C-alpha cells in the first residue's frame, strides 16, 4: 500500500512537469509553417522544441513486448528535447483506458499507444484525438483511422508470406516436400494472419504440402509441449515455421530432446537467442522472420516529428505518413550480424 501511494505521488509530480512542458509544446504544435521541416530526418539529433510524449503499452510479460518498452525508452533518452511519460504496462483494457486518460489529462503533446486490445481501446484513441493530442497507434490497430494520426506496425501477413517464400525457395526442386507450422495463440487475429500469409506463399510451390499445424501459446512451455507432439506426429518433414522465437526456445528444446535434425526451421519475431543460433548455424534454426520491436523507436521518432511539426526525412511530404507497415525481413546467416543488436531477450 505505501508503495502504491508513493507511486501515485510520483505520477502527480510528473504531471506538473508535463503541464509545464505543454506551454512550449502547444505553441510549436500549431505552427506547421516551417518550410525547412521536411528536410529534417525524423531522427535528427539536433534539439528542437520540447516534446512530451505519453507512452502506454501492455504488460511486458513477453520478450517482444519488453523489447518494445526498451526501444521506446532508449530512443526517447537519445533526444534532449523529448520527455517520455511511460505508464505501467497493463493487459487489462479498463486499466489501460484509465492510464491513457490520465495521459490525456496531463496534456502530453503526442500519445504513443500499443493497445492490449486495439478494438477495445478505439474510443480512448478518439478521445485523445478530439482533445487535440495526436496519437501514434503502435502495432495493434484501432477500429477507425479517426482514432490515430499515424499507425505504425508490423506485418503479420507479410511475416507468414516471407517465411513461406523463404522455405519455398530452400525446398525448391524437392518433390513432395512436407512442411509443418507451429503457430502462436489461436485466439489472436495476428496468428490467423500469419498462417494465412504462410499458406498463400506456399501456394506458389506446388511441390510443398503443409502437413500439420498446432498452436502453442507464445510461451516456452507450450512451445516445448506442442513441438514434442508435432515431432511425434510427423516422423519425416522438411521444414518448420514457428511463429514466435520465444516459444521457439521450447520448440528447439523439444527438437533437441527428440534428437531430430532432418529439417530446416524458420522462426518469427527476431529474438537474440534466435539470431545467435542462426549465426552459429549448428542446429535446425536457419532463419527468422522479423516483427521488429524497433517499431517502438520509430514511433518515438514519429511522435517527436509530429510534436515538432516535422515530416519524415527522405520523403517529400511536410507531414508524416498516416500509416507505416514495416517490412518483415528474413534474417538468415547472410545478414544476421546486421540485426544482432536489435535482437530482444
Amino acid at each position, binding site marked *: 500500500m505505501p508503495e502504491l501511494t508513493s507511486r501515485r505521488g510520483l505520477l502527480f509530480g510528473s504531471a506538473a512537469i508535463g503541464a509545464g512542458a505543454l506551454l512550449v509544446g502547444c505553441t510549436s504544435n500549431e505552427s506547421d509553417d516551417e518550410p525547412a521541416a521536411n528536410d529534417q530526418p525524423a531522427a535528427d539529433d539536433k534539439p528542437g522544441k520540447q516534446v512530451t510524449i505519453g507512452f502506454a503499452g501492455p504488460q511486458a510479460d513477453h520478450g517482444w513486448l519488453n523489447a518494445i518498452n526498451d526501444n521506446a525508452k532508449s530512443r526517447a533518452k537519445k533526444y534532449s528535447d523529448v520527455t517520455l511519460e511511460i505508464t505501467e504496462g497493463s493487459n487489462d483494457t479498463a486499466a489501460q483506458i484509465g492510464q491513457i486518460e490520465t495521459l490525456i489529462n496531463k496534456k502530453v503533446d503526442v500519445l504513443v499507444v500499443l493497445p492490449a486490445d486495439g478494438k477495445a481501446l478505439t474510443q480512448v484513441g478518439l478521445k485523445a484525438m478530439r482533445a487535440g493530442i495526436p496519437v501514434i497507434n503502435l502495432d495493434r490497430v484501432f477500429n477507425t483511422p479517426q482514432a490515430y494520426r499515424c499507425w505504425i506496425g508490423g506485418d503479420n501477413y507479410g511475416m507468414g508470406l516471407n517465411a513461406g517464400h523463404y522455405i519455398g525457395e530452400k525446398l525448391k526442386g524437392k518433390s513432395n516436400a512436407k512442411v509443418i507450422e507451429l503457430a502462436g495463440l489461436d485466439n489472436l487475429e495476428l496468428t490467423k494472419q500469419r498462417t494465412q500469409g504462410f499458406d498463400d506463399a506456399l501456394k506458389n510451390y506446388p511441390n510443398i504440402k503443409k502437413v500439420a499445424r498446432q498452436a502453442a501459446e507464445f510461451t516456452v512451455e507450450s512451445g516445448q509441449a506442442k513441438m514434442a507432439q508435432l515431432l511425434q506426429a510427423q516422423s519425416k518433414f522438411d521444414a518448420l515455421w514457428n511463429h514466435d522465437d520465444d516459444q521457439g526456445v521450447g520448440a528447439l528444446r523439444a527438437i533437441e530432446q527428440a534428437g531430430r535434425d532432418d529439417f530446416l526451421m524458420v522462426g518469427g519475431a527476431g529474438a537474440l537467442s534466435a539470431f545467435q543460433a542462426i549465426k552459429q548455424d549448428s542446429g535446425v534454426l536457419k532463419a527468422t522472420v522479423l516483427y521488429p520491436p524497433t517499431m517502438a523507436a520509430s514511433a518515438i521518432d514519429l511522435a517527436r516529428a509530429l510534436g515538432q511539426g516535422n515530416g519524415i526525412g527522405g520523403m517529400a511530404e511536410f507531414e508524416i505518413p498516416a500509416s507505416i507497415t514495416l517490412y518483415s525481413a528474413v534474417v538468415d546467416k547472410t545478414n544476421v550480424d546486421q540485426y544482432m543488436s536489435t535482437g530482444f*531477450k
Partner: protein
Amino acid sequence: MTQHASPPRDSTDKVPSTGAPPAWRGLMARADVRTLSLLGVLAVLIIIGGITKPDEFLDTRNLQLVLTQASVIGVVTVGMTFVITSGGIDLSVGAIVALASVWATTVATQEYGFGGILFTAVLVGLGCGLVNGLLIAYGGMVPFIATLAMLASARGLALQITDGKTQIVTIPSVLDLGERDAYVLGVPPLVMVFAVVTIIGWLILNRTTFGRRTVAVGGNAEAARLAGIDVRRQRLYLYLLSGLCCGVAAFLLIVLAGSGQNTNGNLYELDAIAAAIIGGTLLSGGRGTITGSVLGVLIFTTITNIFALNNLQSDVQQIAKGAIIVAAVLVQRRTASTT
C-alpha cells in the same frame, strides 16, 4: 414377535465379521468402480488413438512423450489432491510453478549449478506454501481468497524477476536430464520423479496418520477438531505440501523446457483441479484418491496427444476437453450409483 426380529437385521449385515478382506470389499468396490471407469475412459482413448494413428500413437516414443508431458502437471495434481481432500483449494499452483521456475533460473542461481536450481525451486515452492498455509490456517482466510492473492503476487513477482524475458538454462547437467540419453531402461527421469511422487502421495494419503487427518479435516473439520486433531497445523502442512509439489514440478519444467519463464504453469490450477475432480476426489473434501487424480492427468494428456497427432486445432481440442470432463464425470456417477 420378539424372536423373528433378527433375520432382517442380519440381512443388512451380510458381510461376515471375521477377517478383513471380504469386509473391505464393500468400501473397496466403490473405489474400484471409480478407478475402473477411469481406466475405461483411458482405454477408449487409447483405442481411438490406436485406430486413428496406429503408427504414431502406439509407439514407445509416444508413451514416453505422453508420460513426460504428464509429469509436471501430475506432480502438481498430487499436491492439489491433498488440499482438495482436506476441503481446501489451491489456486496458486500455476503461479508458484512460474515463480519457482524463474527464481531457480536467474543468472545468480544458475551459478550454483544443478543443486542450486533444484534447491531454489523447492525452497520457493515451500515458501509460497508456507505463506498460503499461515494465511489460511492461522490467519483465518478462506483458501480460495488466500491462494488467489498468492496467484496474483507470485505471478507479479515472477514477472518482476524476469522482466518478461526468457531465462535460458545453461547448466548441462540440468539440461541433460531432459534428454533421451538420460532415460533409464527407456524411462525418462521426469517420469520417474512423477512415479515416485505418486507412490509417496498414495502411501501418505492411504497409509499414514497424516493422510487420515487430511481426510478427517476435509470430511468434517469440526468433528476432527473435537476428536483432538490439530486442524490448523494440518492445514498448514497441507499447503506446504502443495507448495513442495509445485517446487518439484517447477524443477521438472525447467528440465523439460530448458528455461524459466514467468508465463510457466499457465492455468495449472484449473488443469490440476479438473484432473483431481474427474479422478473422484470430492471438491467438498473428505474423499481423495491419488490413483484417480493421476488417471485424470493421464486422460487429459492422452487427449491432447491424440488431438495433436491427428492435427486437430486448438478450438476443437478445447471443446472436446470440456465434453470429456463432463462425460468422464457422468460415466463415473452412473457406474458408482448402479453398484
